[in-house]
C-alpha cells in the first residue's frame, strides 16, 4: 500500500445504473488531502460532477456515498459514512451521515465509497462482496418495507451482510424519504431515499473481508485506548450519552430543552410541553431493552426499545432518539410514548426522516386547527393536535402518497406554498429543510446557525444554543461570553463550530464522539493518514463550508435564503421563555457579522481573496465569483 493511501483504500466504485456498468476508479487523493472524506470530499465530488440546475430526482442526479479515513479503524466513535446528494427538498446539497456497521464493512470490502449515477430501467439492488460487485434484480424486494427487505437480503446472502435500504416512501419518492441501515440507523434527512427510489435502486448490501491500514498503527491504537480510558473510566460524568454507564442517550436533552423552553411543542407554538414527563428519559428507560453501540464506539448511546403492552404491543425502535421523540411527540402534542414509538417505527419501516415527519405532521395539525385544512382536504381525518390515530394514519398515507399524504410528502415548504393562506408563516423550514427540535428563539444564535447551515435547517452544523444557555460544549479557542437573547458574538461561535463540525463530519467520527477529548481528533487523523497538514481543522473546515456555499450559490442561493420562518420573528414564545422572539434587527446584525467574519460579501458570496486563501480559487472562477 502506498503511503498516500493510509486510512484510505484508495478505491471508489462507480455504478452507472442506466447501463449497468460498474467500474473501480482511484479515489482523488489530491481532493482527499484537501477535504478528507465523508461530507467534505462528497461535496467536492458533486461540485465537479453535477451540472447546475439538474432535477434531484432525475437520471442526471448522482448519489455519493463516502466513508472517512477513520472509518473501520480503532479510532473511538468512528463508524460513520455519509450520503451526499442534491436534496429533493432543498435543491442544494445535503450530506446525511449514518452510524452502524455499513461504513466499516464497505471499507473492508475495499472501497472508500461509491458514486451512483443514471437510472436503472427496473428495480435493482447493489450487492458488494469484496471484489465481486453486482447489480441484482430487486423485483422480489421492491414494494417491501425496510425490515422485510433487510430480512430477505440477509436470508439470501448471509446474516453478516450489512444492508442499507429504502422503504415505500423512498420508492414513492417522498421528498424526505430516508435510507435505513440494519433496521435502526438511517441516512435520515433531506430525502436521500427519494433519490434512491428515483433511480430504481432499492438497496446496497455489502460484505467485506479485507482490512484497513493506517500510517502509524501503534500510535493510533495507543492514543485511541488512552482516549477511551480517560473518558470512560476517569471522567464518566462527561458521558451523559453512555448507555451502559447509566447515561440516558440523546433523550437526556429533553430535560433541559423543556426547562429552558426550546422543546418544540404544537408546531413550535410553545417551547415546553405540559406532559413532557410522559415522554422523557425516565419513560424511555422503562421500555429500553438494550443499550447499543455503533462500530468502534465504546459509548453506546442508542436505545433499543420495545412496547410490551397495550394497543401498540410489539412496536420496536432500534435507536430511539431525542430528535425523533420531540418532533413526533411534543411537536404534534402527542404524549403517549407508545404512540411516539409507533410513529418512529413507521418512519423506519417505510423509510422516512423522523424530524421532517414530525415537523410536517405538526404543521398539518396546525393548519387543521386554524381551518386552513378541513376534513374535506384530509378525507375525513380529524387532524387535531394530539390525535394519536390521525398521526399514525397520516404517516401511512404520506409513505403511500395517498390523499392528503401526497401533499405532505412534498415537505413543509412545498405543501405550504400550495395551501397558502398564510400557512407559509408557520411552515418551519430553512431553504426547504424542516427545522429540528431546538427552538431558536430561546438562544437567538441558534437561529443564525439554522439560517446559515450549508444545507438548510440542520442542528449539527453549529450548536451555539448549549454554549449560550449553560456555557457547555465550547469548541476550541477562548470561550466567548454569549447572552442567549443578545446578538453579539454568535457569528464567531457559529463560524468556529461550522468549521469544526464540517471537519469532524468528514473523518468518519461521530458528533458525540468522546465529547471533550474529541479535541484529539486531529491527532487521531494524523496518525491515521500520516499527513501533518490534516490537523489544521480550521482551514479544512472553512474550505468545506466555502465549497458547500459555492455549490449553493450556483443553484441560486443568496442572502434572501439565509433566513428563518416568519413565526420566529413574529411570535414570542410563552413561558418558561416568555416573550422570547428573534428581532429582525438582531438577526440582520448576526448575519452581517457572520458574512463579514467569513470574508463573504453582503449577498453571502465568498470573495476571490477568501477562496485563494483556502486554495480553491478555481472553484470560484467556475461560478463567476470575482
Amino acid at each position, binding site marked *: 500500500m502506498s503511503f498516500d493511501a493510509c486510512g484510505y483504500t484508495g478505491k471508489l466504485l462507480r455504478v452507472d445504473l442506466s447501463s449497468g456498468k460498474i467500474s473501480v476508479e482511484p479515489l482523488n487523493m489530491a481532493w482527499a488531502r484537501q477535504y478528507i472524506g465523508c461530507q467534505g470530499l462528497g461535496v467536492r465530488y458533486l461540485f465537479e460532477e453535477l451540472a447546475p440546475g439538474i432535477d434531484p430526482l432525475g437520471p442526471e442526479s448522482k448519489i455519493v456515498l463516502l466513508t472517512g479515513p477513520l472509518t473501520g479503524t480503532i479510532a473511538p466513535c468512528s463508524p460513520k459514512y455519509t450520503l451526499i446528494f442534491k436534496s429533493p427538498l432543498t435543491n442544494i446539497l445535503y450530506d446525511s451521515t449514518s452510524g452502524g456497521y455499513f461504513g466499516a464493512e464497505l471499507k473492508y470490502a475495499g472501497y472508500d465509497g461509491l458514486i451512483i449515477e443514471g437510472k436503472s430501467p427496473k428495480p435493482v439492488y447493489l450487492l458488494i462482496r469484496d471484489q465481486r460487485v453486482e447489480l441484482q434484480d430487486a423485483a422480489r424486494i421492491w414494494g417491501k418495507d425496510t425490515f422485510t427487505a433487510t430480512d430477505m437480503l440477509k436470508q439470501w446472502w448471509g446474516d453478516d451482510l450489512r444492508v442499507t435500504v429504502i422503504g415505500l416512501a423512498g420508492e414513492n419518492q417522498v421528498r424526505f424519504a430516508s435510507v435505513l441501515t440494519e433496521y*435502526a440507523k438511517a441516512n435520515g434527512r433531506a430525502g436521500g431515499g427519494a433519490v434512491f427510489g428515483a433511480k430504481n435502486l432499492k438497496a446496497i448490501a455489502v460484505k467485506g473481508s479485507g482490512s484497513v491500514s493506517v500510517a502509524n498503527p501503534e500510535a493510533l491504537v495507543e492514543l485511541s485506548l488512552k482516549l477511551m480510558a480517560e473518558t470512560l473510566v476517569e471522567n464518566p460524568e462527561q458521558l451523559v450519552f453512555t448507555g451502559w454507564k447509566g447515561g440516558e442517550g440523546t433523550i437526556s436533552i429533553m430535560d433541559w430543552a423543556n426547562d429552558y423552553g426550546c422543546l418544540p411543542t404544537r408546531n413550535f407554538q410553545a417551547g415546553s410541553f405540559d406532559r413532557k414527563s410522559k415522554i422523557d428519559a425516565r419513560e424511555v428507560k422503562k421500555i429500553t431493552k*438494550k443499550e447499543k453501540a455503533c462500530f468502534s464506539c465504546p459509548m453506546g448511546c442508542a436505545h433499543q426499545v420495545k412496547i410490551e403492552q397495550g394497543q401498540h404491543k410489539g412496536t420496536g425502535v432500534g435507536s430511539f432518539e431525542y430528535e425523533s421523540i420531540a418532533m413526533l411527540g411534543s411537536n404534534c402534542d402527542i404524549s403517549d410514548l407508545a404512540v411516539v414509538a409507533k410513529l418512529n417505527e413507521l418512519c423506519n419501516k417505510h423509510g422516512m426522516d423522523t424530524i421532517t415527519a414530525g415537523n410536517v405532521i405538526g404543521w398539518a395539525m396546525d393548519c387543521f386547527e386554524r381551518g386552513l385544512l378541513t376534513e374535506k382536504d384530509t378525507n375525513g381525518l380529524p387532524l387535531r393536535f394530539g390525535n394519536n390515530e390521525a398521526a399514525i394514519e397520516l404517516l401511512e398515507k404520506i409513505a403511500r402518497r395517498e390523499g392528503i399524504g401526497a401533499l405532505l410528502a412534498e415537505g413543509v415548504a412545498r405543501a405550504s406554498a400550495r395551501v397558502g393562506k398564510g400557512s407559509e408563516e408557520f411552515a418551519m423550514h430553512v431553504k426547504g429543510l424542516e427545522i429540528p427540535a431546538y427552538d431558536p428563539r430561546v438562544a437567538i444564535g441558534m437561529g443564525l446557525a439554522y439560517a446559515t447551515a450549508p444545507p438548510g435547517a440542520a442542528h449539527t452544523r453549529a450548536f451555539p444554543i448549549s454554549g449560550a444557555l449553560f456555557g457547555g460544549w465550547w469548541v476550541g479557542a477562548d470561550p466567548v461570553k454569549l447572552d442567549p437573547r443578545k446578538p453579539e458574538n454568535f457569528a464567531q461561535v457559529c463560524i468556529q463550530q461550522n468549521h469544526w463540525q464540517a471537519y469532524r463530519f468528514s473523518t468518519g467520527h461521530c458528533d458525540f464522539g468522546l465529547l471533550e477529548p474529541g479535541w484529539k481528533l486531529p491527532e487521531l487523523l494524523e496518525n491515521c493518514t500520516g499527513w501533518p497538514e490534516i490537523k489544521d481543522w480550521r482551514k479544512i473546515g472553512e474550505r468545506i463550508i466555502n465549497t458547500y456555499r459555492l455549490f449553493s450559490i450556483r443553484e441560486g442561493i443568496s442572502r434572501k435564503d439565509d433566513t428563518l420562518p416568519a413565526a420566529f420573528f413574529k411570535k414570542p414564545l410563552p413561558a418558561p421563555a416568555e416573550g422570547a422572539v428573534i428581532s429582525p434587527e438582531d438577526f440582520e446584525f448576526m448575519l452581517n457579522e457572520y458574512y463579514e467574519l467569513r470574508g463573504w460579501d453582503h449577498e453571502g458570496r465568498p470573495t476571490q481573496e477568501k477562496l485563494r486563501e483556502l486554495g480553491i480559487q478555481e472553484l470560484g472562477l467556475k461560478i463567476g465569483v470575482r
Partner: protein
Amino acid sequence: MAKVFSIDAKKCTGCKLCELICSFHHNGVFKPSVSRIRVKLNTREGTAQPLICRQCKKCTCIEVCRPGAISQDEKTGVITIDHAKCTGCKECIFTCPFQAVGFEEEPKGVAIVCDHCGGKPECVKVCFPGALKYIDKETSWAPTRQDTTSRA
C-alpha cells in the same frame, strides 16, 4: 492458575472494539474477518453475542483434526493450532459448537483460534461495558459464565 473468559452477552453493546484490537494484535491491521473473537450481531433485536474459544474439556476440534495440528495445553487449557501442519480443511470450524474457530485466507489459508494473547487478552482491555472478563477457572461456575449460553 488456569484462566477462562467469562462472557455476559447482555452487557455487550456490539461495538466490536474487541475484533479490532484482536486483529491488530495478531495481524497488525484492522481486519475483523481474522479476529479470533467475533461478535455475532442481531441488528433487528439489537442483541450481540461474543463468540470465543471456551477451552472445552473434550475438544471436538482436536478430535476432527486429521493432520493433528490442534493441541490443548494441559495446564491452561489454551488451544493451539500448528499452522505448519494445518491444511485449511475447515473441519474444526464446522465442528465447533460455539463458532469460535476462524479462518485466515492470507497468506496460506489456516484455521485460527483465540490464544489468550499469552495470558493478557487484548480484547478484555477494550471491553469497557464489561461484557468480557478474564477470570480464574475456579470461579468460572459463577452465573456470568452461564450467560454465555444465551445466544444472540
